[in-house]
C-alpha cells in the first residue's frame, strides 16, 4: 500500500517538476550555507569551509540528480517525451497518419465487433446459478440424436441419482383472444414440467412458479407470463395475477410472471404452460413420441459422464423391453446446456472471428510496411541521433511509441466502429442465439486493450529492428548518396508482403468457399413454385374447432372465398410448405410387406393437404392421382407419398394401391391407400429429401388438421393479396390470429439468409484484405522504384530497352506476390477443412474457388505493380541522374 501511495505521489510530482527543481536548488543551497557557517565558526578558511561542506554532501550535482529522480518517475518522463515526439511526427505527415489510423481502425473495429459477439454468445456463462451443472439431454437412435419421449423422461427423472433435478420442455403456441373484443394474437409458448424453472434456478418475479399440482392432466389450467409479454399486453399491471386469459378459447389462470432477464430458450417465447397441460395426453407416458428437450442439473461432484451412464442404463432397459413395440431410443446423449444453445452458430462465428483476426494481422503488416518506408526517409535522423549518444533502446522505444500511438488512435476510432458494427451484426444475423446478452464487458475491454498494444508492438517491431540493423556510418553515408539503398530493408518489406499476400489468399479462399456454398444453397430447387406465392399461417384450436365439421366448414369457405379474389390463380391448404421446416414425422407400416425385424421402423414426414394444394404450389404428380373433393371427413383413407418414400420402401413395385398404416385418426391406426406419387420437395433448403406423405386436411380431425398454411398463387404482385386474404380470415373468425404472412421467397430466404449473411461478411473481409494487400504491394514497389531511380536512369542511358525494364520491375513486385500466393494456397488447402462442416455441397478444395482466387489475386497484384513499373520504364534518364 505504501508503495502504491508513493507511486501516486511521485506521479503527481511530475506535475510540479519545475517547482521541485527550484526547491531542490534552494534547499541544498541553504544546507551548504548552514554547514559553511558551522565550519567557519570552527575556524576553517572560507574556501576550506565550502570544500568540506561539499565533500560531506557527496557532490552537489549528484545529490541534485538523486533528488530529481526521487521526485519524478524517469520512465514516465521519457514516455511523455516519446509521446510528444510521436505526436509531432504524425502531425507532420497527416496523410500518412490518417491512412495508418484508418487501416488499424478497420482491423481493430472489425475484430472488436466480432469478439463482442463471440464473447457474449460462446464464452459468457449462461445467466443461471451454477450454469456448469446444467446439461441438455437427448435420446439417441443408433448414432443420431433425437428429442426425448415424455415416458423416457419420467423414467429418467424417477430412477437417476446424479441429478438434483431434471425437467422437460418443448415449443408450442397458442391463439389468444381477449374476451372484450381485443385483438387476437398468436403466441409462441413453451410447455415445461413444473420444475423447469427451479432446475434452471429461476423464480417468479411476481406471483408464484408452477407446482406439481399445476403440472397434471386434470389440474386447473394455469399459465406463467414472460416479462416482455406481461409489459406489452398487460401494461405491466400486477393485477393480472389470479385473472384468466383465453388461450385457444380456454381460460387459463395467470399465476406468475418470470423475471425480465429470463429469455430462455428464446426471447420469442411469450408464456409458459405446465407440461402435462400443454402436451396431448396420449403423448405423456409414451416412449415412442420424441417431443421434448430435457434439462438436468447435476448434483455437485457428479460428472456428466457418470450421470449419463445412469440414464443410459435406464434407457437400455426401456429399449430391451419396448424395442419390438415401437421406435424407442437406445441411449441418451448429454452436452452442456451452453453448447446446446449455441449449437450451429459456433463454427461460422469462429470462422468469422478467424477472418477478422487475419484482417487485423494484414492491417498490422501493412502499417509495418508503411513505417519501414518512412523509417527509410528518416534514416539520417536516426543516425544523427545515435551519433549524438541516443541509445538503441531509446530509438526502438521511439519507433514503438509511434506505432502504438497510431494503434491507440486507430483503436479509438475502431471502438466507435465496433459499437455500430456489433449492433448491425445482431440485427442482421437472425439465428444467433443469446442475442439479448450481446454487450461489451471487462473481457471485451481487455481484448481491445490487448489487441491494440499487440498491434502497435507488432507493426512497430519490424521497422524498429530494421532501423537498428543499419550502422550509424552506413546511415549517414546512405543518406548522402541515394544509391542502392536499404537492400536489407527492401527484402524485409518483401517478406512482410509475402506474408500479407498469403494471409489474403487464405481469407479469399475461405470466403470464396462460403459464398459458393451459399450460392449453391440458394439455387437449390425446393421442388415447387416460389414466385408469386403467398403463405398465411394460422392454427384452428379450441372450442370453436372441436368438431371435424367445424374445421371442414372453415377450410372450405376460406378456399371458396380466396379462390374468387381477383388476381388469385390458385389456392391450397397444407400444414407446411416446402422449405418450411421439418415439422414432424410419424411411423408407418406397410401391410402388404412382411413384418420388419424388431427394432426397425419406417418414418415418413407428416404433411396434410387439400385436393388443390399440389397444383396451387406446383408440385408435379408423377403417378396415380391427387385427392378428390369428396375425400373428406371420415372418407379420408387415402395418402399421397413422395419419390423418396417410393424409392426407399417400394423399390421394385408399384406403390399405387398399396397401403400405409398410420396412427393418425386413432391411436391404434388405420390403413391408408396410396393414391398418388409426387415429386420430392425439400423440407429445408440444403437438406436432403426425406420420405414424405400427405393426408387429407379436409378430414377435419381436431388437432391433427388444425395447423394450416394457406397458399395463394397469383400472376403478379402477390403481396398485394395479403390484406384481402387476412380480411377474409377475420370475416370468417374475428378471434383467429394469423401467425405469419410470408411470400414463398421469404420462407426459403429465411433458411438461407444466415449462411448468406456470414458468406457475404467473410467476402467483405476478404475484399478488404485484398485491397490492403494490393495497396501494400503498390507501396513497396513504388518505394523500390524511387530507391533505384539512379540505377534505372543509368540503365536507360546505357541503352536498356524500356519494355525489359518494365518486365524487370514488374517481376520484382510480382515475385513476393507469387510466393505469397503459393504459400497462401498451401495454407488454405490445409485450413479449409475447418469450414467443411458449414459448406453445402462444396468441397473444401473446390477447384473453381481456388482458381478464381488465383486469378483475382494475380489481377490485383498486376494492377498494383503496373503503375510503378510503367513509371520506371518511362524515366527520363537525364532527370533521373540529376536527382542524385
Amino acid at each position: 500500500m505504501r508503495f502504491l501511495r508513493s507511486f501516486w505521489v511521485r506521479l503527481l510530482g511530475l506535475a510540479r517538476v519545475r517547482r521541485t527543481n527550484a526547491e531542490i536548488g534552494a534547499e541544498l543551497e541553504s544546507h551548504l550555507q548552514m554547514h559553511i557557517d558551522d565550519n567557519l565558526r570552527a575556524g576553517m578558511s572560507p574556501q576550506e569551509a565550502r570544500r568540506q561542506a561539499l565533500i560531506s554532501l557527496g557532490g552537489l550535482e549528484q545529490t541534485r540528480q538523486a533528488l530529481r529522480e526521487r521526485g519524478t518517475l524517469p520512465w514516465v518522463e521519457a514516455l511523455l517525451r516519446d509521446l510528444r515526439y510521436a505526436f509531432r511526427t504524425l502531425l507532420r505527415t497527416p496523410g500518412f497518419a490518417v491512412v495508418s489510423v484508418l487501416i488499424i481502425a478497420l482491423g481493430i473495429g472489425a475484430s472488436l465487433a466480432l469478439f463482442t459477439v463471440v464473447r457474449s454468445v460462446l464464452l459468457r456463462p449462461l445467466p443461471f446459478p451454477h450454469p456448469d451443472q446444467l446439461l441438455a439431454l437427448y435420446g439417441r437412435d443408433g448414432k443420431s440424436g433425437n428429442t426425448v419421449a415424455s415416458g423416457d423422461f419420467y423414467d429418467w427423472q424417477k430412477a437417476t441419482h446424479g441429478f438434483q433435478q431434471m425437467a422437460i420442455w418443448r415449443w408450442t403456441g397458442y391463439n389468444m383472444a381477449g374476451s372484450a373484443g381485443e385483438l387476437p394474437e398468436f403466441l409462441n409458448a413453451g410447455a415445461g414440467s413444473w420444475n423447469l424453472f427451479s432446475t434452471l434456478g429461476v423464480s417468479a418475479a411476481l406471483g408464484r412458479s408452477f407446482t406439481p399440482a399445476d403440472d397434471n392432466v386434470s389440474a386447473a389450467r394455469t399459465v406463467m407470463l414472460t416479462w416482455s409479454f406481461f409489459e406489452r399486453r398487460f401494461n405491466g399491471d400486477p393485477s393480472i395475477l389470479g385473472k384468466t386469459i383465453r388461450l385457444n378459447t380456454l381460460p387459463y389462470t395467470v399465476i406468475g410472471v418470470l423475471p425480465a432477464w429470463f429469455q430462455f430458450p428464446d426471447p420469442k417465447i411469450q408464456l409458459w404452460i405446465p407440461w402435462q397441460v400443454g402436451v396431448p395426453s396420449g403423448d405423456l407416458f409414451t416412449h415412442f413420441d420424441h417431443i421434448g428437450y430435457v434439462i438436468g442439473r447435476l448434483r455437485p461432484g457428479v460428472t456428466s459422464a457418470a450421470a449419463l451412464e445412469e440414464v443410459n442404463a435406464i434407457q437400455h432397459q426401456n429399449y430391451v423391453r419396448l424395442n419390438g413395440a415401437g421406435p424407442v431410443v437406445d441411449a441418451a446423449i448429454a452436452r452442456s446446456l451452453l453448447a446446446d444453445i449455441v449449437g450451429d452458430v459456433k463454427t461460422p462465428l469462429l470462422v468469422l472471428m478467424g477472418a477478422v483476426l487475419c484482417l487485423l494481422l494484414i492491417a498490422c503488416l501493412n502499417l509495418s510496411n508503411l513505417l519501414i518506408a518512412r523509417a527509410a526517409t528518416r534514416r539520417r535522423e536516426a543516425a544523427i541521433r545515435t551519433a549524438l549518444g541516443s541509445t538503441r533502446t531509446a530509438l526502438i522505444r521511439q519507433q514503438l511509441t509511434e506505432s502504438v500511438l497510431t494503434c491507440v488512435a486507430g483503436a479509438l476510432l475502431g471502438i466507435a466502429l465496433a459499437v455500430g458494427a456489433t449492433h448491425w451484426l445482431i440485427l442482421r444475423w437472425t439465428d444467433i442465439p443469446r442475442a439479448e446478452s450481446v454487450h461489451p464487458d471487462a473481457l471485451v475491454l481487455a481484448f481491445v486493450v490487448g489487441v491494440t498494444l499487440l498491434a502497435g508492438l507488432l507493426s512497430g517491431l519490424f521497422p524498429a529492428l530494421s532501423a537498428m540493423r543499419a550502422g550509424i556510418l552506413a546511415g549517414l553515408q546512405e543518406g548522402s548518396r541515394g544509391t542502392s539503398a536499404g537492400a536489407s530493408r527492401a527484402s524485409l518489406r518483401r517478406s512482410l508482403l509475402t506474408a500479407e499476400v498469403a494471409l489474403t489468399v487464405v481469407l479469399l479462399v475461405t470466403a470464396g468457399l462460403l459464398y459458393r456454398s451459399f450460392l449453391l444453397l440458394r439455387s437449390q430447387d425446393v421442388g415447387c413454385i416460389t414466385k408469386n406465392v403467398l403463405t398465411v399461417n394460422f392454427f384452428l384450436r379450441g372450442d370453436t374447432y372441436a368438431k371435424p365439421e367445424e374445421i371442414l366448414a372453415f377450410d372450405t369457405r376460406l378456399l371458396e372465398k380466396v379462390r374468387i379474389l381477383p388476381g388469385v390463380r390458385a389456392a391450397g391448404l397444407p400444414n407446411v410448405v416446402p422449405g418450411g421446416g421439418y415439422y414432424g414425422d410419424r411411423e408407418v407400416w406397410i401391410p402388404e410387406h412382411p413384418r420388419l425385424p424388431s427394432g426397425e421402423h419406417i418414418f415418413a414426414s407428416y404433411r396434410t393437404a387439400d385436393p388443390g394444394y399440389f397444383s396451387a404450389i406446383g408440385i408435379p404428380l408423377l403417378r396415380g392421382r391427387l385427392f378428390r373433393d369428396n375425400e373428406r371427413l371420415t372418407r379420408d383413407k387415402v395418402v399421397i407419398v413422395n419419390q423418396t418414400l417410393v424409392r426407399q420402401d417400394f423399390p421394385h413395385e408399384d406403390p399405387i394401391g398399396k397401403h400405409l398404416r398410420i396412427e393418425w385418426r386413432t391411436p391404434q391406426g388405420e390403413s391408408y391407400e396410396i393414391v398418388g406419387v409426387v415429386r420430392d420437395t425439400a423440407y429445408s433448403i440444403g437438406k436432403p429429401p426425406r420420405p414424405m406423405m400427405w393426408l387429407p386436411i379436409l378430414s377435419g380431425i381436431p388437432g391433427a388438421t388444425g395447423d394450416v398454411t394457406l397458399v395463394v398463387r397469383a400472376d403478379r404482385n402477390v403481396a398485394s393479396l395479403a390484406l384481402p386474404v387476412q380480411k377474409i380470415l377475420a370475416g370468417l373468425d374475428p378471434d383467429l390470429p394469423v401467425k405469419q404472412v410470408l411470400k414463398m421467397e421469404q420462407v426459403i430466404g429465411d433458411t438461407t439468409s444466415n449462411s448468406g449473411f456470414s458468406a457475404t461478411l467473410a467476402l467483405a473481409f476478404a475484399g478488404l484484405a485484398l485491397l490492403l494487400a494490393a495497396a501494400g504491394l503498390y507501396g513497396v514497389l513504388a518505394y523500390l522504384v524511387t530507391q533505384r531511380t539512379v540505377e534505372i536512369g543509368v540503365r536507360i542511358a546505357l541503352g536498356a530497352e524500356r519494355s525489359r525494364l518494365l518486365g524487370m520491375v514488374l517481376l520484382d513486385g510480382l515475385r513476393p506476390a507469387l510466393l505469397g500466393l503459393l504459400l497462401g494456397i498451401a495454407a488454405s488447402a490445409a485450413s479449409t477443412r475447418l469450414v467443411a462442416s458449414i459448406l453445402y455441397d462444396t468441397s473444401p478444395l473446390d477447384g473453381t474457388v481456388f482458381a478464381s482466387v488465383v486469378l483475382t489475386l494475380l489481377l490485383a497484384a498486376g494492377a498494383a505493380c503496373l503503375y510503378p513499373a510503367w513509371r520506371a520504364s518511362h524515366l527520363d534518364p537525364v532527370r533521373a541522374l540529376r536527382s542524385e
Partner: protein
Amino acid sequence: MGEKTDVWQGTLALMVLKTLDTMGPQHGYGIARRIEQTSGNLLVLNYGTLYPMLLKLEQECAVTSEWGLSDNNRKAKFYRLTGAGRKRLESATQDWQQTITIVARFLSPAEEA
C-alpha cells in the same frame, strides 16, 4: 515495510523519524548533525543520501515540509513529523527492538543452554 531487507535505509528512516519526534520541526542539516551527535559521532552520514530519504518520507506522507528561518536567520526547509509518521515511527521502533532481541539471543551463548 517494503525496505526490510535494506537495513541501512530502514535505519536511516527510523533515525530521521526519531530525530524529528524528539526535536520537533527541523531542517535537513539540523537532522543530519543531530543524528551524528546522537550516534556519538560513530556514524558518518553522507548528507547527500539524507535529502532523497526526506523526500521519500514526504511522498509517503510521514513528514511534511515548509520553508522557515533557521537559528542563524537562514532560509531553510523545515520537516515536521505527521500523525502517520508518528505511527510509523512506533511500529518501526517495535520492529527494530524485536530484531535486536532476536539477534541478541543468537549472539549470547548463555541462552543456548
